[in-house]
Every structure is written in structure tokens, then in C-alpha cells.
């Protein structure tokens, strides 16, 4: 009887989290999937992109799922910060510090293309920093609220 009640409460507690995590995984993965499909014709020019995106997607999704399952604890924000850091490192790495240089061989001619994406990178890094900042502030708020609760 007790086991049944425990199972029910466990299911009630985790079922919404599982659904939320699944939804977030789908929402997160879709843009990455479309981006990969869009970039596929040009993949021969930057072959490192495919594997790198898959690694990033896997790490990001793991942090996302763990963050959802640890919601209501301080770890939720820890994983949020980790997610922001991973995103920031990924963007800096994949955009080569903002200067994307490609060498495209066309009919025996070497064509060098250089795009300065530092403005875009700065915006992406800023977004990641804002995300990290938000998680830190939320963590402080969470800890202070917990201390207040314990004092009461």
C-alpha cells in the first residue's frame, strides 16, 4: 500500500518534469537540426562543424534535462550556469573568435573568403552572459529564500 502511494507521488512529481524535459529537448534540437540541414550543402568547406554541433547539442541537452530534473534545488541554477558557459565556448569556437576564414577551391583557383562576425559573436556572448547572470541571481535568491524559510 505504502509502495503504491510512493510510486504515485513519484510519478506525479516526475511526470510533468519528464514531459517538460522532452518538450525542451525537441524545441532545442529543432533549430540545430534545421541549421545543420541548411549548412549541409556547404559542409565540405567546414567539415568540423557537423561533429562539433552534435557534441554541443548532446552536452547542451544533457545540461537542460538535468536542469529540469533538478528544478527546485540549487543544482538547477548550477546546471543553468554550466549550460551558458558551454554555449559561450561553443559560439566562440565555432565562429573562430569572430573571424571566419574559408578557402574554397574552384576550378583550380584558390578563393579565400573572410567574414568578420565579431558583432554577432559579441551579441551571442552577451546573451550567454545574461543567461549566466540570471542563473547566478536566481541561485542567490533561492539560497536566501531557503535561509529565510529555515530561520522562520
Amino acid at each position: 500500500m505504502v509502495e503504491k502511494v510512493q510510486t504515485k507521488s513519484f510519478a506525479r512529481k516526475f511526470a510533468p518534469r519528464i514531459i517538460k524535459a522532452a518538450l525542451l529537448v525537441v524545441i532545442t534540437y529543432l533549430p540545430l537540426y534545421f541549421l545543420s540541414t541548411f549548412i549541409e550543402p556547404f559542409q565540405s568547406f567546414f567539415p568540423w562543424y557537423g561533429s562539433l554541433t552534435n557534441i554541443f547539442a548532446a552536452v547542451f541537452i544533457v545540461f537542460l534535462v538535468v536542469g529540469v530534473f533538478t528544478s527546485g534545488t540549487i543544482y538547477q541554477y548550477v546546471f543553468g550556469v554550466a549550460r551558458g558557459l558551454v554555449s559561450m565556448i561553443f559560439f566562440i569556437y565555432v565562429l573562430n573568435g569572430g573571424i571566419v576564414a574559408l578557402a574554397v577551391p574552384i576550378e583550380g583557383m584558390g578563393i579565400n573568403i573572410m567574414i568578420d562576425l565579431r558583432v554577432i559573436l559579441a551579441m551571442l556572448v552577451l546573451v550567454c552572459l545574461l543567461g549566466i547572470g540570471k542563473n547566478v541571481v536566481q541561485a542567490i535568491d533561492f539560497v536566501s529564500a531557503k535561509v529565510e524559510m529555515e530561520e522562520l
Partner: protein
Amino acid sequence: MRYAVRALGWATKIFWIMIIVFSVTSVYSVLNLKMGFGQPQIFLSDEEATISIPLFINNTGLYDLSELNITADVMDYNGSSVAASTTFVPLIPKGSNIETLHNISISLDEITSKAQTYLFNDTTFNVDISVKLNFASAIPFQVSMNMTIPWGAPLYNLSIGQFSYNYINLTHVEVITPISFENHSPYFSVEGLMQVEIYNDNDNGERLGLGVSDLNVPSHYGYDGQVEMIVDISKITGSGEVRFYFETSVFSFGPVVVPYG
């Protein structure tokens, strides 16, 4: 604390929206940008030849293009510049259509001084082309390429063979001069006239005779002909030089001096 969290959350969302909107509209704008070159025209002045290439840019995108800079530098086999050109367009506003000329100037002095090399020796030209522009005043973009253009000598291996003589009378003889060369140029045929003069090796280099031959040598074909001229027997010394003058549709050049004997 909650207001700070909410503000940070909104700021993050707004930045994400800005990045996504800018990225999507930038890709759309780049796909709607049309750029091309028209039929080149050649203008000649006393000092230089100018190849004028019409350039059109149709910016139907959502952002302005600025500081468009096109440069081309043509260098010969030893790295010295044969032709250089720059075109600068300060601004191409969105929705506008711009037509301009990209002028490549070639110094005629430079060409003439090196004509002997280009007419008789195969070589290569290195062409460096660079296009720079600033997209939406935020994304500098640069495309550069390096090409090697082969140059085939139109009068490659110009040489004279053994003279043969037809005696006309006691004082004069017909000298037949075999001449050969190969037109290695992939760009043009050698069509026109070739004037040949034979000189003896007296102190003043006295002219023995003069002959003219028509030329019509297509690209990658050889010329193997002869020029006949009547010469005074008493002036023949057995050695001297042959001078060639070329008057073709593409170039005029002479004298080219080839010793004989």
C-alpha cells in the same frame, strides 16, 4: 531580486530575438544581392591602355552595403606589377541599383619595355583580385583570389634557316630565307605583315635586300615560310643580321635582330 531576474530574462529574450531576426534578414539580403560584370571595353591613350569593365550591383536586400573596394593586381613572372586597378563605392543603399566601371590601367611603357619577353617567351601572369565590403555596417566581408594566367608567346622560337640562292644574272641573286616560329598564344592569331631585311656585316651594316610576307597563324599553330629578295652579289659577305618588323592586328614590333653566318 525577482525584478532583477525578470529584467535579465527579458533582456536575454530580446537579445535572442534581435540575433535571430538579424541573422535571418542578413541571409535573406545576401541571397537577394545581385552582382555581375558587363562587356569589357579598351581605351588607349598616349601613356596607358585602360580596360574598362562595367560592374553592376543590385542591392534588393534589407541592409545597406558600404565601402565596396575591388582591387586587381596583375604581376609578371618576376613579381613586378603590370597592371593595377581599384574601384571604391562608398555606399550602396538598400533597394538601389548601382552601375560603375572597374578600370584596369596598363602602362604602355612597361609593356613596350618588356615586349621582347612577352613576344618570344612563354610566361605566366599572377593576378590577385580582392573584393571587400561592409555588410549592414556591421559585418565586414572579404573575398580574395589568386590566379595564374598562362601567357603564350605569339612569336615563340623565331628563327631563320639556311639561305638558298637562285642566280638571276651575273650581278644579282635571289636569296630565299626560310623563317619559322610558333604562335603559342591561346588568345589571338598572328595576322598581318612581316617585313624582313638582310644586312651584311660591313662597318655600316649595309642593307642587302628587303622582303615582305603575309602572316596568318592561328593560335597554337606554327609558321614555316620563306621570304625571297633580290640581292646584289657583290655586297654579300657571308654573315650579318636579319631584321624583322611585324605589323599585325594585335601588335606592331620591330626590329627583331637575328644574326646569321
